[in-house]
């Protein structure tokens, strides 16, 4: 048990805004049924959040968040719209730098590196933290150039190497078999689900260790959603994945840990199985049972 994930959550019911980081490992022996090999006991912290606040102008979007997102696991963020889950995600790769009024304070560390520090090179940061957006956003280029876009930015490589990167990335995104014969056709000719997987491949090709997914399936049909979820299951062995979702089933199906957020506060964070079957907080209970949100 690594020291960075403190033991035993004692959620203060009087003040749910400051939940202590839970210890998901507690539950793994009894709760995890699908993947006994995971061995939750050996998780390393990937992203550490402590006393984290964020604002848009005067709007206090995130209030005093404290949590540790473990490495090589899928962490789902759930909660009603406007609760700040996307905002949080967009701070991890500093996409909020694009919003003029956005600012943040507190500790947000990726593998020990403070992300809010002014010395952090956001361009370098985004190489290590890939992002998949709500709506598939392939560039209006062909499939190959879409995947090769990132490597071409950062690396000098031969044609053969680049071909390998593109092929491996597309394989990792479970798209290779569908597109290998038409790599030069426009990315926008793919279906919505394929486009989203292309965006995942594009993110993988840069060689990130963390993947942020901002409601990646909300614009997709159920079949494509299933394909993306399968893909996530394959990727979880290699990547730290943080996914924001509106879809309760998706969170319970696909994630290892779940964080419930409400009005900018992290209400509950713990093992997915636990959050969904015996939430410690009443608000969580109400939300997942569909009483609000």
């Amino acid at each position, binding site marked *: 048990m690594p020291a960075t994930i403190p033991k035993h959550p004692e959620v203060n019911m009087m003040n749910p805004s400051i939940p202590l980081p839970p210890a998901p490992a507690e539950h793994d022996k009894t709760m995890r049924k699908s993947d006994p090999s995971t061995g939750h006991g050996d998780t390393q912290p990937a992203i550490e959040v402590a006393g984290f606040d964020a604002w848009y102008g005067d709007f206090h979007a995130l209030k005093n968040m404290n949590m540790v997102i473990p490495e090589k696991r899928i962490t789902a963020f759930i909660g009603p719209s406007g609760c700040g889950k996307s905002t949080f995600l967009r701070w991890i*790769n500093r996409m909020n730098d694009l919003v*003029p009024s956005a600012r943040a304070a507190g500790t947000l560390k990726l593998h020990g590196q403070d992300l809010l520090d002014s010395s952090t090179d956001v*361009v370098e940061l985004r190489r290590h933290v890939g992002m998949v957006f709500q709506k598939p*956003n392939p560039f*209006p280029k062909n499939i190959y150039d879409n995947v090769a876009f990132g490597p071409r930015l950062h690396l000098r490589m031969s044609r053969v190497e680049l071909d390998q990167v593109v092929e491996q990335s597309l394989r990792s995104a479970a798209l290779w078999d569908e597109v290998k014969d038409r790599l030069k056709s426009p990315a926008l000719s793919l279906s919505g689900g394929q486009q989203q997987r292309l965006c995942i491949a594009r993110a993988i090709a840069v060689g990130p260790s963390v993947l942020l997914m901002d409601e990646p399936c909300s614009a997709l049909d159920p079949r494509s959603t299933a394909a993306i979820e399968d893909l996530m299951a394959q990727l979880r062995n290699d990547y730290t994945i943080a996914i924001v979702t509106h879809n309760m089933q998706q969170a319970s199906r696909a994630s290892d840990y779940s964080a419930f957020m409400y009005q900018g506060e992290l209400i509950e964070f713990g093992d997915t199985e636990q959050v969904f079957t015996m939430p410690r907080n009443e608000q969580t209970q109400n939300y997942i049972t569909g009483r609000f949100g």
Partner: protein
Amino acid sequence: MNELASHPPSARSGRFLKDHLFVAVCLLAAGLCIAVLGVLLASIITQGIEHLDTHLLMNPPSRKPEKAGIYPAMIGTIYICLVCAVSAIPLGVGTAILLEEFKPRQKTLARLHGFVQLNITNLAGVPSVVYGILGMTAFVEVFKVMGSPGDPVWTLGTPENWYYLQLPFGRGVLAGGLTLMLVVLPIIIISSQEALRAVPNSLRQGALALGATRLQMVWGTTLPAAVPGIMTGTILAMSRAIGEAAPILIIAGVVYITFTPEHLMDDFTAMPLQIYDWASRPQESFHQVAASGIMVLMAILLTFNAAAVMIRQKFQR
């Protein structure tokens, strides 16, 4: 029955009468637009058809209307528009990128950004004849600090060389083209800005999320996606440049030129100037030549506009 039905029908029909009357007025207005265009084209064609032949296209102007041609003016127009395009497109697209893709967050810089934007709006409203005066002072005379056009302080080659350059530029092709550049620059900037603004933000975010710098994002995704829009705007701006007469009139004057320019400093005339020259003469027969010249000019402009429309439609997806 109920209250709705109890309204007197006349009130209703009165309101609808207004509606119908308004439609009639609108139709009249729209019909007038079409009629004006029709009369304009018809009058020019009837006056100009007689002189429209290869003789007109291949020969220099003449004192006799039946022998007059527009060849040197056509070549002159091509030269100044080339100079204009080469200088205006990079400057215009560059300014548009600066204004659209590098909006500063810092307050003072943001204010400066707003000032540059307002300045562009203002430049777009400056009458072209004022740009003519600016070009006269800044390019023809170079603020009178470099000697006079007849006695240049610096030359490259001699007037026999095709690469002949001098400072100040004098009333030549280069000064004319650069002045046109000033006229069309705001148009290119504004249309390029609109093209860049139309690129969805998701593409920008996609590129940044892959670790692209701002410039890599612009070069790799935003600019390629905006190219059709930029091209359409640029072509329309160039067609404005082809037809623009006032600033060129100030730079070049109406001169009787029977040769084509041989270098960038050479005297020139342009099609709108030649047409103005013919149209301002009292003789009816020169008006007919002017109409023929207008037909040539309009044919070129329509080709440009058609190209712009085709590009727009091809990429409108």
